[in-house]
Structure formats: C-alpha cells, structure tokens
C-alpha cells in the first residue's frame, strides 16, 4: 500500500434507504480499483441526521423506493451547501436514479406534492405513470456506457444543463428527448444502475483519476485486467443489437 497518505474515502450516501438496485457495486468497484493499484481506500457511510464526513475523495449514491427518497431528502437539503462546495472543489460524485433526481431541483409527484432537491443540476423530475425499464446504452466521452434503467420519474434538463450522454438503446432522462444523465464539473447523475461501474471501467477510472488529481497525483493509472468486463459488455451489446 502507498501508505504515506491517508486512505481514500469513498463516501456512500444513505446505504440503508437508497440502495435497492445493487448500487453498492459502484462503491465496491471504486474501492477495489484503488486497492489493486496500491492505494488504501475505505467505504464510509452517510446516514440521515449524521454530520457529513470531512474531505471525502469520491461520493456515490443510489436509488431507492419513494419511501426511501422521502426519508432522506430533508437530510440532503441539510448537507446541500457542503455538497455544493465539494462539487466546486472538483470532488468526483456519482448519483444514480433517486439521488440523481434529488441533485436536481426536485421531484414532483402527480398530486403536486414535491420533494425539493439541492439543485446541483439544472434539472427537474416529474412522476409519470410510465415505467422506463430495461437495458440501456449511451454514447459518452467515456465511450459507450452500459446499464439497466428502472424509473417512473422523468427528468427534464433545463437551460444549458449538459447531459451525460446520448441514448443509443433504451430511454434515459425521459421518454422523448434521447439524452441521459447530467454533468456538473465532476458530478455525474444518471439512471443507469446494474451496477454501473463494474461494466464501465473507463468511467470508474475517470472518477478515480479525478480523485487522485485532487490530491496532486497526476501519474497515469496502472492498467487493470478488465477482460471479464469487456466480455460482459460485448455479450450484452451483441444481444441488444
């Protein structure tokens, strides 16, 4: 281990409430890809009502059920200012599904009820009766991203909010516009779970490279053995064709 520096902190937001679609996989992948390269890394958890850990290197969060989202949104508003500061300090973050929605302006249900978000993304989400579900692929600057989407909330990007990518197969942010996810600096919001990072190692490494850069380490990342990931990708891409 390169033990002359403190361990990398991968902060996992609301593991009990927002973790039903295997989003744990994203945290595991970041930790292992750091460890395999000789960097000590630990996954730490943030629970509602607790103070946000100091100096996280990477933040990840997942999707939950409506009840889970309702349990965390007030806590998210309470730590929102800190998350804005971290975003502006270029801390890499990956938010999937329910937390992606709450990193926008908010979530509006059918009956006009709403959960306010923290507005890191210029985007808003409305509940619909249509469930967008299935395998999904995107063109992004990290190459083709592959995942699985399962959401009834549909997200509109507002103003000049940049998307994460263009949908090749599947739905993405909403059923009409053909774009998916949102990006602000190094904060990525997306509907792709599955888990996302295991089958998209280039994207995982981009988050890791940014975390290293924030610590002043600009050494290129050692390549890892990703042949199972490429075969899993090839297999699925062939089946989706």
């Amino acid at each position: 281990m390169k033990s002359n520096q403190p361990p990398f902190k991968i902060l996992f937001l609301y593991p009990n409430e927002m973790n039903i679609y295997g989003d744990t996989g994203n945290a595991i992948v970041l930790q292992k890809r750091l460890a395999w390269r000789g960097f000590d890394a630990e996954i730490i958890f943030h629970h509602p009502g607790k103070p946000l850990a100091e100096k996280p290197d990477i933040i990840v969060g997942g999707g939950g059920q409506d009840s889970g989202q309702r349990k965390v949104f007030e806590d998210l508003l309470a730590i929102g200012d800190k998350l804005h500061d971290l975003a502006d300090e270029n801390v890499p973050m990956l938010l999937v599904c329910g937390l992606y929605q709450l990193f926008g302006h908010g979530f509006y249900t059918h009956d006009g009820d709403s959960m306010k978000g923290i507005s890191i993304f210029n985007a808003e989400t409305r509940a619909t009766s249509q469930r967008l579900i299935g395998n999904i692929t995107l063109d992004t600057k990290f190459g083709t991203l592959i995942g699985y989407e399962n959401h009834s909330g549909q997200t509109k990007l507002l103003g000049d909010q940049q998307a994460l990518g263009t949908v090749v197969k599947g739905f993405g942010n909403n059923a009409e516009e053909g774009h998916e996810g949102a990006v602000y600096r190094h904060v990525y919001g997306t509907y792709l779970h599955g888990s996302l990072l295991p089958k998209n190692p280039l994207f995982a490494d981009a988050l890791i490279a940014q975390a290293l850069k924030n610590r002043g380490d600009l050494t290129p990342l050692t390549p890892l053995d990703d042949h199972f990931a490429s075969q899993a990708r090839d297999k699925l891409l062939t089946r989706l064709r």
Partner: protein
Amino acid sequence: MNARSTLGLGIGKLVRGSLRLVGKNAGALPGLISEKIAPNVLADTLSSLPDGVIVVTGTNGKTTTTKIITDLLTTNGKRVLTNRMGSNFTRGVVSVIVSESELGKPLPHDIAVLELDEAYAKRFVQVCKPRYVVALNVMRDQLDRFGEIDTTARLIASTMQAATDGSIVNLDDPRLVRAVEDMNLEATFFAVDPKLSKHFPTDDDLLAVEVAETPKPAHNHKPAVSLKNFKGQSVTYGFGRKQVSVDMRLTGQYNFQNGAAALTLLQKLLPDITPETLTQQMSHVLPAFGRGEVIEIGGERVELILIKNPSGFRLALASFHDPALALIAINDNDPDGRDVSWLWDVDFSSLRKSTIATTGLRAYDMALRLQYDDLNASWVESDLAAAVSKLLSDKSKLPKRIFCNYTSMLAIRSQFGKELHEV
C-alpha cells in the same frame, strides 16, 4: 360444490387435457381458466377437506418446509393435496385442484398443504380460511412486486390473522414476532438456539453494506421446537426439555431451521406421534426440486441449488462450508428478472476455497462480480449444456454444486432430462 364450481373445474380439466395433447406442460393456465369461471372454486373445493388447509408462507424456505410437512403427513397415513410443483400462486393452486379432482365429487384428500408467496397468501385466505399458517421469515425479494419489506411483513400478518387455529411463527424474525404481538394473534413459535444465531442472520443483519448488528427486541415467548445444534448432517432438536438428534438427508442449516417449523406444526396435526418418531421420520425427507437436491447426470452426482434473490443466494452460500466445484448459472430471461444488479448485493467470499466457474446468459457478469470479491472464475462458458458437461467431466473428488437461477435450472433439467436421475 355448486354447479358453477363444477363447470369451472370441468372446463379447467378440458384445457389441461388439450394442453397435454399438444405436448405443453399444463402449468397455471387451467387454474386461471377455472378461476375465471368459478371464482369460489378454491373455497368450495377445499372446504370439503376433513383436516383443513395449511398455508406455508415467507420469503425463503417455503418449498422445503411444505415438502417436509407433506412427506410426514403422508408417512402417517394422511392423503395430502399439495402444490408440489412450486406453482405458489393462487392459480397454480387451482390448477392442482383441477388435476386432482373428480367432477362432482369431494377431493380424495384429508388435508391441503400449500406454499403461497406472501402477496398471494393474503388473497388466498380471503376466500379460504386456513387452519394453520406457517410464517417462516420476511426478507428482501421481488421489491418490484411487493414494494418494501415492511409491506411484505404486513401481508404475512393479514394471512396469519385469517388462521382459524393459529400460526406457527419464527421467533427469530423480529418483524413476524412484532406482528403477532401487535395484532394479538394465536401463535406457536419455533426458534434457533441463541448460541447458533450467528449462523442465522435476519434480513436487517444481512443488509449488504452495514456492519452493525440489529439488537433483537425482548420478548417472553418460548419456542415449542428449537434447533439446538448441528454439525454436518447431524442435527439436534429441542422439544421443551427433551432433545432428539438425527442424521438428516436435507442439507444446509436453513433447511434444519425449516425442519423446526415443520415439526412445530406436525405436533399439532399429529398429536399422537411422539417427537422422537416425527424427527426420525423427518431425517428421511429428501430435498425438494432444486433446493439442494442431489441428482445424477450420466452417473455423476451433482447438487442443484436454486437461487432467485440476494437473500436466497446468501443463505445458500452460508449453508455450505466445504470446498466444492461450484458452477454458477445466471440467466436474465423474464422469469429470472432482466436486471442482474442484485448479484452485487451478495458477498461471494465464502467460495474462496472452492473452484468456481460461471455459465448462462450472464456468465460474464457473474465472473466480473466474482473478480471484485477477489475470486477468480476458473472458466466461463455461456452455453449451459456445455458448462454442465464440463463440470461433470472434471475428475476432482470435490462435491459438484450448481447454483442456478430459475430458467437456467429449467434449461439444465430439460437438457439432461434423459440421463438425469433423482438420488
């Protein structure tokens, strides 16, 4: 039985016969059709059973528990109607009745023992009141259908409420115990001895990323039957002060726990049979279809273990401690769920001493999952038949074990149908 029910059963039988003629397995379709024509077909037919109806429900262990109860009742001379095929939806139950009934006559059975999934159990008891409900556990599964785990617990609570004679309840499942207390239900408990509890985590303990143990709430209940100890296949059950030890054919600690549930019920249903005799009889019960059953393919012994959800997979892995040749078969067809992200909620590190291979439509996803637990898939073969042949041809002395999800199990069984024997 009224005219409409008779008509419903008749048409159901006709559909079943026609499907047989065209070579299709009947499954739940005849039941669906009978149910449409005579919605009360269940209640009408089952109410004629002299020893009533038993419902077995919970997330994991239904099939094995139902099999133990059915086998022991049969051993003791009861004629049992059961949905042995794992068709644990209401319509599957109606299908069983359609195939077993003779038109216009009461069922030729004494008692029905039915495994019902949590949502269907609640609907079932609205039309047919069971004598006893066996409530095994509440764990995370099929969240797309049930919503969330507390909802599942409520479904089971309403099912228990409908029992005329009481429920058989897992004393180690805090949600079920709370339901019994809150609703003041008539219940008899089974349990695992506290010194074994580390082998039997509850769903809250199992939350993938959390390390904190959930303290179990205090209660004053005493179990009627408890699993006292196990080592290999040697298992000890406690009945009050009395203890009985046997060597079980069933494998896996969770099946030993299911055994405690079955014994608790059987003491009520067969009051004249001693605990010693019941436990002895249970030791001969063989595993159910795909629940750790041992089969032979071309003379080679293989264990088949069906895994359908993260808790089921974790429990299956926790049931084996010996090194093995393990083949993990993961498909993503509709009945399996198209989404395989749940594999990331299972910790595979207990396979560290085993040799592991993967197969199925998602063979590479599974190999990738193993990689992140620092485990190496020694080979990957997407084609199920080729993978099973490769496993069988391995000359190793280690036990051969296939962990498979639903359609991969069906595919393996149909591929090797002719050479496959139950052991």
